[in-house]
Each structure stands twice: as structure tokens, then as C-alpha cells.
């Protein structure tokens, strides 16, 4: 994938499929330690210990339309290629946390890319889920929480085009302030 934000979009789809109702995305850029960390956690159905052991293997998938599952193995390959690694913790019935890190300055690391379009896409894909996106850069942070937005919206759907446009502008400002 050309951007890390595309991997994030793909991994979040796993959480949506796992019937999560809250998904947290944390991006932590720590330039001083040359570290870029991404954590995606959900409260979905989780995985059994046995399945978890094999989940990074492309041949482990519960999908039925083809025999390989690529999302996690692609993300892991991207991490390893830029001096990092991927780690998954999961408990059946409780949820899953996927952690990936990269060397921030690695020339083999894809750029973070367009997180705004990733957030808009996941909001549209399952608007009922609460998404919390926190982006930390050195000492500063920006937090975007769809439940806070929904509280201000009352009964207007978050997927209304004008609202999505507003969210884009809001995130643009927030991310630019980092």
C-alpha cells in the first residue's frame, strides 16, 4: 500500500467485521526517538489463542471469498521493511489490539498519508461505531471522537454530506496544528 493510512483503513475493516462498537486509532510520532507507532484497538469478538498464533500468516483467514487473508501480513511486511514490527493481542469476547511500529526516518517507510480520507471512509462504512482517533506528534496531540461530534448533531446523521465536509475541515485544522 502506498500510505500507512490505507493499511489503517484496511485493519479497521477487520474490527468492523469483528462487530466492534468502539474502535481506537492512535498514531504516535516521536521524532526524538525516531519512532512512529500505530495502535488500533477494538472491543469486537476477538480471536482464540490458537487462531491468534497463526493470524499473521496469510493463509489464516475466516473470509470465504478467497483462501488468503492479506491485510495483517501486508501491514507486518511494511513494518519489517522499515525497521519495525507488528504485534497483536486479542481475547475472545473482549477485543483486539494491533500495534505496529516503524523507524520514523526509514526511507522504506510509506508516508502516513491522508488520514482524513481514511476517517471519512470508515465513518461511512459503519457510522454507528464510535471512532476515536488520537494523533500525537512529539509533545502535541489532536483527538477526534465521533461520539463528541454526534452529541452536537442530535438526530442529524454524521454521514450527511455537509457534516462530513465540516469534519474534514475540522481534522485539517487539528492535524495542521501538530
Amino acid at each position, binding site marked *: 500500500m502506498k500510505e500507512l493510512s490505507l493499511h489503517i483503513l*484496511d485493519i479497521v*475493516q477487520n474490527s468492523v467485521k469483528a462487530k466492534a462498537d468502539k474502535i481506537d486509532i492512535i498514531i504516535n510520532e516521536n521524532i526524538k526517538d525516531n519512532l512512529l507507532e500505530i495502535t488500533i484497538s477494538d472491543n469486537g469478538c476477538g480471536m482464540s489463542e490458537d487462531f491468534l498464533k497463526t493470524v499473521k500468516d496469510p493463509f489464516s483467514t475466516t473470509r470465504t471469498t478467497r483462501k488468503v487473508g492479506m491485510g495483517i501480513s501486508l501491514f507486518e511486511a511494511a513494518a519489517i521493511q522499515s525497521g519495525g514490527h507488528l504485534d497483536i493481542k486479542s481475547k475472545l469476547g473482549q477485543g483486539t489490539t494491533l500495534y505496529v511500529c516503524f523507524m520514523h526516518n526509514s526511507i522504506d517507510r510509506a508516508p502516513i498519508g491522508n488520514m482524513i480520507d481514511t476517517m471519512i471512509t470508515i465513518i461511512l462504512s459503519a457510522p454507528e461505531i464510535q471512532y476515536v482517533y488520537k494523533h500525537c506528534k512529539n509533545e502535541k496531540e489532536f483527538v477526534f471522537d465521533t461520539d*463528541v461530534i454526534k452529541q452536537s448533531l*442530535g438526530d442529524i446523521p454524521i454521514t450527511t454530506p455537509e457534516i462530513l465536509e*465540516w469534519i474534514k475541515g475540522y481534522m485539517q485544522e487539528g492535524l495542521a496544528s501538530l
Partner: protein
Amino acid sequence: MKSLAELQQLRDQISQQVVLRKDREDGIRVVVGMATCGIAAGARPVMSAFLNEVSKRKLSDVTVTQTGCIGMCRLEPIVEIYMPGEEKVTYVKMNEEKVARIVAEHIINKKPVAEYTVGAVQE
């Protein structure tokens, strides 16, 4: 700086319109395949392009949604368009330029762009 107060103002402005827009089962649906292979092939910018066109042209009867695997990896990104009373049209190997044409010719003028459809590619 954008604030939640501003968002509430916007909500009040649009609440009237949205009420009218609700319950439109007869609308047009644009469905973008957003599984791993679709995303890798460029499905996200295709979806954003549809959203932008819908916003820009104020097409209030069009909804843009997503689905998982459509089952034709090598033809991704794939977009299906459902118009009321018409057969579904499947567009393949989509990109942003194709979106502009499909919106103008198919969604607005009701004439599918035959050369971008799955049928044209498989022949």
C-alpha cells in the same frame, strides 16, 4: 478555529433539508468495494471522488456506501451503481477521472458509460 458551536449552527441550518431527505428508499446508490485488494488498488480516492461530486453538485438523492469483497480482485477498484427500477451497473478498474464521467453521464443523464463496465472489459 472550527468549534463544536460552529457544528451546532451548521446542524440547525441543515436540519430542515435533512428531514426532507430522510426515508428516501427510491434514491441512487453508489457502492464501492473496500476490501484489502480494493483499497490497495485505489478504492479510497475513488470513493472520495464520488463524495466530492455528490457534495459539489448537491445530488441529494445519491448515497455513497461501501461493501467488502466483490470477488474480482484483478478488476478492482470496483463500483456498483443502483438506480431505481434499473439493473445494477458494475464499473471496474475505476479511477478519479472515470468518476467525473460516470457522475455526469450515468447518475445525472441516466446513460451508463458502457466502456467502463465489467462487460466491456471481459469481452
